[in-house]
């Protein structure tokens, strides 16, 4: 606990993290840090949040022993079912927590960014529950690609704002949300969707998602009688992976994060920030990012919109450099294979994001001891992706 407290004080994970934002926002980040520390220790706030996570979101989520997938790969595979949460992904853990913080801090307006729309839907949902107005920034390209989620957000009462600047995707939606926050900082709470951004966001979001690993660790001990040998999760910004990893940080558990390899690392069309990027500053934090020789942020590609981001959370950069976690990239095709494998063996339509982790498991299974136990973070369900998958499989056929 001492190390963690030190981390919060400094806002750093080794040399990563920090606050690289305009001066205008620094007092708001200070306020958020203080209020978060106060409210997270407040039993009344804690009880309201926990009750909502339980009765409204559906926590705890099951840990499922995937018997047929285990047989197929010669492993003992346990799946943490975040896909069964309300709104269909782990994003709601963070959105509910931050929106409740906003309400307790007396903020009158919620803003968020979204890529695929999952965090936007989660935030719109949380704002509806909290009775706060919500505006979601979304790249114009993503609005076209993810029209169903745009409609879901509108049904939930949120206003979706199309971002026409830059590459018109998630990166630019975050830029625009930051500009809104700089302008309306006195009244507005910015609900960031992953473990990215300036301190204290990477710590705050990590803490809100750490429930995933906390539950899974206890469930492993209860159901399997032991800790897993390996914990594996996909990494875009990295919130579901950090959420899964955090409880195991001091355990002898191998931690593997899987990034989006897009068309393949050799093509340059990918989103494998930790595997193929370099240190730099984007969206308020020092971390790894995909950039050109002049320090301009590069466009990314992935079949999975939720991983299609040129940055990554600073704690992942730290875990990579310290060697505590390892990171790999899997391409679009492998993710589709992983998706189909899980559907066929277990009757689960996973989102394309965690399908990268399933695909990677297929690749590394031969290198693991037979019967090794593996904990997989299944961050979301795949309904949102079926049309993309249909198109991709149709092209292959």
């Amino acid at each position: 606990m001492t190390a963690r407290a030190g981390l919060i004080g400094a806002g750093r994970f080794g040399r990563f993290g920090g606050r690289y934002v305009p001066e205008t926002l620094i007092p708001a980040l200070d306020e958020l840090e203080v209020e978060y520390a106060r409210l997270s220790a407040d039993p009344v706030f804690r009880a309201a949040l926990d009750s909502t996570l339980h009765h409204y979101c559906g926590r705890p989520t099951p840990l499922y022993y995937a018997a047929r997938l285990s047989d197929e790969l010669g492993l003992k595979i346990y799946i943490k079912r975040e896909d069964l949460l309300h709104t269909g992904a782990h994003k709601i853990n963070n959105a509910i927590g931050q929106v409740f913080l906003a309400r307790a801090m007396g903020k009158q307006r919620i803003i968020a960014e979204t890529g695929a729309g999952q965090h936007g839907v989660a935030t719109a949902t949380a704002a509806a529950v909290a009775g706060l107005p919500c505006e979601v920034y979304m790249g114009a390209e993503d609005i076209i690609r993810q029209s169903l989620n745009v409609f879901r957000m509108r049904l939930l009462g949120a206003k979706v704002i199309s971002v026409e600047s830059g590459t018109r995707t998630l990166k630019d939606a975050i830029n625009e949300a930051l500009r809104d926050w700089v302008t309306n900082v006195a009244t507005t709470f910015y609900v960031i969707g992953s473990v990215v951004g300036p301190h204290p966001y990477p710590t705050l979001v990590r803490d809100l998602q750490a429930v995933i690993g906390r539950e899974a660790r206890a469930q492993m001990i209860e159901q399997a009688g032991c800790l897993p040998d390996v914990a594996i999760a996909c990494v875009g910004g990295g919130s579901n992976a950090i959420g899964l990893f955090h409880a195991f940080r001091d355990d002898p558990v191998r931690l593997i994060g899987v990034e989006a390899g897009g068309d393949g690392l050799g093509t340059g069309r990918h989103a494998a920030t930790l595997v193929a990027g370099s240190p730099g500053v984007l969206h308020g934090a020092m971390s790894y990012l995909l950039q050109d020789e002049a320090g301009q942020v590069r466009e990314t590609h992935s079949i999975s919109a939720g991983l299609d981001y040129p940055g990554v959370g600073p704690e992942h950069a730290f875990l990579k450099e310290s060697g505590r976690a390892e990171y790999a990239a899997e391409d679009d095709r492998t993710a589709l294979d992983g998706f189909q494998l899980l559907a066929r063996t277990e009757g689960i339509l996973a989102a394309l994001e965690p399908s990268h982790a399933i695909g990677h498991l297929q690749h590394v299974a031969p290198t693991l001891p037979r019967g090794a136990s593996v904990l997989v973070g299944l961050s979301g369900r795949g309904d949102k992706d079926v049309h993309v998958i249909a198109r991709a499989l149709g092209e292959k056929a």
Partner: protein
Amino acid sequence: MSRLASTFAALRAQGRRALIPFLVAGDPTLDATATFLDCFASSGADVLEIGVPFSDPIADGPVNQRAAQRALAGGTSLRDVLDLAARVRPRLAQPIVLLSYYNPILRLGLEAFGRLAANAGVDGVVVPDLPPEEGGPLRAAAEPNGLDIIFLAAPTSTDERLARVAASSRGFTYCVSLTGVTGVRDDVATDVGGLVGRLRRHTDLPICVGFGVSTPEHARQVAGVADGVIVGSAIVSVIEQGGAAAVPALAEFVRALRAGVDAAVA
């Protein structure tokens, strides 16, 4: 004494305020930028502020974002901007201040940047996403080379933070007039004098005000409370409309801003 310090000392001795026009390098081309800087210098500018284009300019409104995109489409890099500064330095007497987001500087390397910028004749650097807490490494690389790092104060800054901004800055301090991003506005923020007054209690450095200063009348109002007036988006708009042929319109606009600044103390 640095070029920025001597420029502001001379202005102060004359009872004048600085006019600091801003543009984005490489918009529409680096050659055009050189011509525009000559135009600024001959139209009454005291300090020249050159923006380095960045892919993700979170402190900028649409006008400067579009300018950065045009410059990046032409391939403009930080190295190109340093070359440009070196090219115009011999013929221009005014101090040159770069405005760059942090990542292009980091990518070049802090040591290399400090050395190259100083060699190019750059006098100061403003980094809009670098608050003083994170500014130590850049200052350590810049100050031994005689390069002034200028930090920003904002309307939301507490007095404690204003003291830190003032103590960390060299050359001048940059006062953000409004709670928001850069851009053309109808009016100057009403409380700008209050913010400058709060900052003044912590520093003897010149205080220059930017963000939203858009017209000669705005320049007059700001020059009434500050040591310098920074005009960005309104100038970039003139360049956006005129392209490489913007020089006559630019000269006219900068001269009008000059008249506005001088009217404040006349």
